[in-house]
């Protein structure tokens, strides 16, 4: 048992040493003269050799011993460092890693005898004599011995330093600690509810308990955080190997190594990051010759940076390579049948770049073993979205490319909305939440309508598919009595949810509060229900299941393009249409002549109703004192009548009326004016696809909305007119 433990300790230590070795070797390759790095490499080999001898791991001992010998020759300047030697050292590290892996998986050192490697080592050591003594001035022995003693001393100091401040803790211990703290928080909450005593001693001690618990919770949370450097440190070696293999020269810059992330997230982003880094080197950075031709420094830069921003962690991957050519992406997408030629022609460069996130896309002209398997960025995107993150790519063709990943700090605690259906409470991650709609069912307002048997709701003019949480749960489980349909509900709560590109409304019985929940996984008997992504314990100790919005969407056929890849072409098409035609939010009005017109909502400052008695008329124009300013009021139909005399006098509009409805418009220039309207019809979000010609000046185009021809108002034109008329009046 004790031997097992020792072996385990050794394996963990070795793993760390190997990562250290990789990094040291990369630095050493760049600067072979650095005695400090060499000493560090030597020490690591020496430690591995010592421990493996002690644990009777013969192969490991032989290999590390040979390595140590080679290194000591280098230290004594008896052989010169060249590419060969560095490569052999890397191979040595790989061999040690393989043995360690075998030891931890199978408990043996494995079958490989590493004869080739050992021979190579022998050869290199034999080449000792070839080095001309003149170039390598031999050090005297005394110096070498002193240095060794120094190294040993340093070793001892390092060791004692480590034991003083750090200990190894099993992750499961941390997890259970976290559970216990969660439980303590609940117990505290219950105690805080007892306001039995006004005794100051009691109050101050509960207050203290409150503080300590909160602090304890924060500290425990912190223990689970790890520096991103834990995965980044491996990139030195990876980048070096890739660069050598692709005959490129890459300078890896790491910024914000100390940025901390929850360990579960660190694990989850490792693969996507590796993929992106590989992409950068494989497809991004050009060969030195090519770079020179393009007027760039021969060495490419790959920069990884991480930083906290607004409760999230940003990770950026930048390379100054060839960038992404939107045209090439389009060609590729067309040839892969991802989009049609017509659609492709309408895409903006950024939209084209985003095509690489579509499944079945791989930009590598040839499939290499470094990157590009046909699965690519879409997997990266899915993996990042799985942990609640997002990814975007930008590129200046020929100059650089830039990927930004945003991920939450921790998966263990997420903000969520608590809702209930029947007697049971559920948590909906905020990430999926768009808005809450509450419908009063007793009046004549918009209701849930049916498309055959599918309930839908008109949300600002768009049909939103509706899922009743109680119904799906009642039908799906034979467990009666918990989800009775309440027949005469007065109100209906719709939670509008978003998952990927899809939106749907989920009807729940009640909407409670939002709170930060601690996510706990479900047991193996419940893992397969894709309606839930986990469970959490609420403040009162009750359990709430966390709804898996993606799963619910899938099960109700709302989100289908991920599951059914076959129809992805059709889906993509409609997505691209959406990309192409920008959505606009419009205010629909009818003017005094009963024409239906649309005003972009972003220009509308307020909707007002003025008393007619407040409106002042001056020189055939109407004005009102509005917020200490003079607001000109215009009648749309009048603006474009050139002849002043043909215009209807404003008095006419005030006849028989007590109030006037006015849309106060504020333009980008900061100018405001009021448009007199007869009726405000609706506010809706829409895509205008068929544009008709403009029937008169001041109108951009016409389109059909709610069965009526609608005129889109051209504000630039109107402003010019109104202003020139005002000035004209002024000069008259």
């Amino acid at each position, binding site marked *: 048992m004790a031997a097992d433990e020792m072996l385990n300790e050794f394996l963990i230590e070795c793993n760390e040493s190997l990562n250290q070795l990789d990094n040291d070797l990369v630095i050493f390759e760049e600067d072979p003269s650095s005695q400090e790095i060499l000493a560090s490499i030597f020490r690591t080999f020496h430690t591995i050799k010592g421990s493996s001898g002690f644990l009777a791991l013969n192969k490991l001992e032989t290999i590390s011993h040979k390595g140590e010998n080679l290194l000591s020759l280098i230290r004594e300047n008896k052989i010169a460092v060249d590419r060969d030697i560095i490569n052999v050292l890397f191979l040595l590290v790989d061999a040690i890693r393989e043995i360690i892996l075998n030891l931890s998986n199978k408990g043996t050192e494995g079958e490989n005898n590493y004869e080739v490697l050992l021979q190579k080592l022998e050869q290199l050591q034999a080449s000792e004599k070839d080095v001309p003594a003149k170039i390598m001035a031999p050090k005297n022995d005394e110096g070498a011995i002193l240095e060794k003693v120094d190294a040993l001393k340093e070793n001892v100091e390092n060791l004692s330093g480590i034991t003083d401040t750090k200990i190894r803790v099993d992750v499961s211990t941390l997890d259970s600690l976290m*559970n216990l703290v969660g439980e303590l928080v609940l117990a505290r909450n219950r105690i805080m509810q007892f306001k039995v005593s006004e005794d100051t001693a009691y109050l101050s001690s509960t207050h203290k308990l409150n503080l300590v618990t909160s602090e304890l919770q924060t500290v425990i949370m912190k223990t689970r955080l790890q520096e991103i450097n834990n995965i980044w440190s491996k990139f030195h070696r990876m980048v070096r190997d890739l660069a050598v293999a692709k005959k490129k020269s890459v300078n890896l810059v790491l910024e914000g190594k100390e940025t901390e992330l929850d360990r579960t997230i660190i694990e989850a982003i490792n693969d996507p990051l590796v993929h992106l880094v590989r992409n950068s080197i494989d497809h991004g950075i050009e060969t030195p010759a090519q770079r020179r031709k393009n007027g760039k420094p021969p060495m490419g830069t790959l920069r990884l940076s991480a930083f906290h921003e607004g409760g999230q962690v940003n990770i950026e991957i930048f390379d100054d390579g060839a960038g992404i050519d939107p045209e090439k992406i389009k060609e590729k997408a067309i040839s892969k049948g991802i989009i049609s030629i017509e659609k492709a022609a309408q895409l903006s460069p950024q939209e084209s770049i985003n095509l690489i996130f579509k499944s079945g896309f791989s930009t590598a002209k040839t499939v290499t073993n470094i990157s590009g398997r046909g699965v690519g960025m879409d997997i990266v995107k899915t993996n990042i979205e799985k942990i609640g993150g997002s990814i975007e790519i930008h590129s200046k063709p020929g100059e650089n490319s830039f990927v930004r990943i945003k991920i939450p700090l921790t998966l263990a605690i997420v903000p969520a909305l608590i809702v209930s259906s029947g007697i049971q409470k559920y948590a909906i991650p905020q990430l999926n939440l768009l808005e809450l709609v509450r419908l009063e069912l007793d009046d004549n307002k918009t209701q849930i309508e049916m498309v055959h048997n599918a309930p839908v709701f008109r949300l600002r003019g768009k049909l939103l598919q509706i899922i009743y949480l109680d119904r799906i749960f009642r039908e799906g*489980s034979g467990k009666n009595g918990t989800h009775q349909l309440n027949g005469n509900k007065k109100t209906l709560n719709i939670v509008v949810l978003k998952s990927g590109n899809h939106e749907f409304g989920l009807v729940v019985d009640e909407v409670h509060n939002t709170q930060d929940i601690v996510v706990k996984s*479900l047991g193996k*008997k419940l893992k397969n*229900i894709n309606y839930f992504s986990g469970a959490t314990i609420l403040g009162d100790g*009750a*359990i*709430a*299941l966390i709804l898996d919005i993606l799963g619910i969407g899938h099960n109700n056929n709302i989100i289908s393009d991920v599951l059914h890849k076959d129809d992805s072409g059709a889906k993509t098409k409609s997505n691209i249409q959406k990309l192409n035609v920008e959505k606009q939010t419009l205010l629909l009005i009818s003017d005094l002549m009963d024409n239906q017109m649309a005003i972009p909502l972003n220009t509308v400052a307020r909707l007002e109703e003025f008393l007619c008695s407040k409106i002042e008329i001056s020189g055939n124009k109407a004005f009102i004192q509005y917020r200490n300013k003079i607001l000109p009021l215009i009648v749309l139909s009048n603006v474009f009548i050139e002849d002043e005399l043909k215009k209807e006098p404003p008095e006419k509009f005030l006849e028989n009326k007590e109030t006037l409805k006015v849309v106060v418009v504020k333009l980008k220039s900061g100018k405001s004016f009021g448009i007199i309207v007869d009726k405000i019809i609706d506010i809706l979000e829409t895509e205008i696809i068929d544009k008709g010609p403009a029937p008169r000046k001041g109108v951009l185009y016409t389109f059909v909305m709610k069965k009526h021809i609608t005129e889109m108002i051209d504000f630039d034109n109107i402003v010019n007119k109104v202003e020139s008329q005002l000035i004209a009046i002024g000069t008259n």
Partner: protein
Amino acid sequence: MEGGHQYCTFYLDKTFFGIQVDRVQEIIRFQEMAIVPMSPDIVKGLINLRGQIITGIDLRKCLDFNTEYANKKPMNVIVKSGAEAFSLLVDRIGDVLDLSEDLRENKPDTLSGKVRDLISDVYKLENKLLLVLDIDKIIDL
């Protein structure tokens, strides 16, 4: 064979069952359960055991007992299977019994249905039989 013959016992209706005591983590009184819609039949719900969320297994469903006569407030026998803990819902808890090997019999060959797989041994006690359950098989149902 020391600990292997100690059994934690309990009842469903009048039938007497046992589980190897070293598989039992603890026994707790009735807990409010959170119902999990869409879950398999044998899952009754989830309980909160000091911050740990544990799946409650409806033993009556597993063993084809009539669920109508179930104790409305069943006891929880928390058992370990693999790395996970489960709660078996039972009517009443009995003593921990130390049983000698000569009381043990193989299960009768005439035992049929899915229950056959779930019972591993039978012990002859003075006035009744103790049926020993195989927890892992129950949980894998």
